[in-house]
């Protein structure tokens, strides 16, 4: 009997504990736990495909953790391919032109890095095939893969872009992943975003303030 009496409070505590546990059974779970539990591909069948019909997708030529696509840029460029006009290397074309004559894209002002570091020829192939970009080591880069050009200097941004924290996802959160190329948002000749006016008046709390007053 004594033993049972001693056990009673323990039993009571166990019951209490069990009850309080069952009470918290609800949805409360730490996000870190939930995220950690999932290491495999999700089984849902939602795809980004149907939302991206109009985009001309191209597979990015990178060894990323997961395949992703980029919108093709060359098809939207009005004066591409460059070789339509640039039939000869730059120095020959320049030699043939009249003194002071400017034919095309003379209005482009390079606002990108310092003049010591960059000029037109840093990215554009002025010596060979004008349709392609050229890397710092002289290798050619396809115009649709301009991110490789940018990545040479902007390695931090490139890493973030490839991972997913820099740049912009297109159309859908689901797979396959389609993201903007660098030049879809940044003008390569003037990559910084200019300050501008907000799209609308920020009236987040004016309504409340006028009410309070």
């Amino acid at each position, binding site marked *: 009997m004594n033993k049972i009496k001693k056990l009673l409070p323990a039993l009571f505590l166990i019951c209490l504990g069990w009850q309080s546990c069952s009470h918290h059974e609800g949805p409360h779970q730490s996000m870190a736990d*939930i995220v950690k539990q*999932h290491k495999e591909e999700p*089984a849902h069948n939602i795809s980004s495909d149907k939302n991206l019909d109009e985009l001309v997708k191209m597979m990015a030529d990178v060894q990323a953790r997961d395949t992703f696509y980029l919108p093709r840029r060359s098809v939207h460029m009005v004066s591409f391919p460059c070789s339509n006009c640039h039939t000869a290397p730059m120095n020959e074309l320049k030699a043939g032109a009249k003194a002071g004559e400017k034919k095309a894209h003379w209005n482009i002002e390079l606002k990108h890095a310092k003049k010591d570091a960059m000029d037109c020829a840093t990215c554009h192939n002025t010596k060979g095939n004008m349709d392609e970009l050229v890397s710092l080591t002289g290798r050619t880069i396809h115009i649709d893969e301009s991110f490789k050009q940018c990545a040479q200097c902007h390695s931090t941004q490139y890493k973030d872009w490839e991972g997913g924290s820099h*740049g912009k996802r297109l159309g*859908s959160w689901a*797979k396959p992943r389609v993201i903007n190329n660098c030049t879809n948002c940044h003008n390569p000749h003037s990559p910084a975003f200019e300050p501008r006016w907000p799209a609308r008046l920020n009236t987040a709390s*004016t309504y409340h303030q006028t009410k309070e007053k």
Partner: protein
Amino acid sequence: MFFKKNKNNSSEEPSNTPKSGCGTGSCSCGSSKEHGPKEEIKGSEPKKDGFDQVLEKKTDRRDAIKKLTAGLLAGAGLASTSCSVTANDLDKEMAGLEWEEYFKGNYKLMTDKERGETIKRLERMYELKKGGKINVSSQGAAEDVLYGYAFNISKCKGYMDCVNACVEENNQDRASEMQYIRIHEHRNGSMNFEMADDNFYHEVPAAGHFYLGTQCFHCQNPPCVEVCPTQATWLEKDGIVVVDYDWCIGCRYCMAACPYDGRRFNWATPQVPEEEVNKNQHYLGNRLRKKGVMEKCTFCIQRSRDGKNPACVEACPTGARIFGNLLDPNSEIRWVLANKKVFRLKEDLGTEPKFWYFMD
């Protein structure tokens, strides 16, 4: 023993008060009929609460209402023989639909058939009222999906494009300028929301400032859901906290319980110009609301469950907004969580928001 006594006292008190309040005889809430099933349910399955009773009651009531409606329609038909026939038919239909709508159940408890019926009614009612067609979806949560959101405070420049997109997408009240998203302009080096400017209208970004957006964080442990007396708001399986606008009584408990200013109230009937109404709707999302109900961000449930990004994500010109599936180890949001120094607001409250902030 002392505790026990105290507990007993406190549990008796509230049960006594309503009795004394309703004990006038004319009131039906204290009748023995209701006590029977309550005790039964408590005894057999402790997890069952008022829901089943509501369900049972609802079907009973619905039958009664159907009979009433039939009577009403018959009466209306009799009384209006002199008027034009077509107009009468439409009026009759509308009256019937309104009756049915008024007495429908909580969306959470509806069967798929009932959901389909109410959606048909809503679409038909809009057609009768406005002449246009809307498409209301009842698409449920997909397996293996838990939505999460990340906000890059280095990238946001306060352009406010997200707010415009949100208002247009979600049919928010134009009259009171309701907005789910708030963009707070903070001075560099401080994140005091009391000191933030929420009413800026100047060229952005302002020098020496950063911008931080808030909206519903879709907490995994949502306090707003906890306090709702009618269970008109709940956490869906894919992590979206939703509101059943037809079950909300407008008590605004949730608004008070939300530590993040995530909920909005319709003080008046929301005004949305007919040509601006987004006709692609979801029952738990952007369908048109009425006066006296709560609403909030739903991660654009009508879009996200369809595989699309929310309107704010799509509209953001800087890519500061990242949306994705937390259960997909290869998703962008998971990459951000793994590789960036992320933080959440008021983490100490244990609300587990699925909305993280980070810097480049």
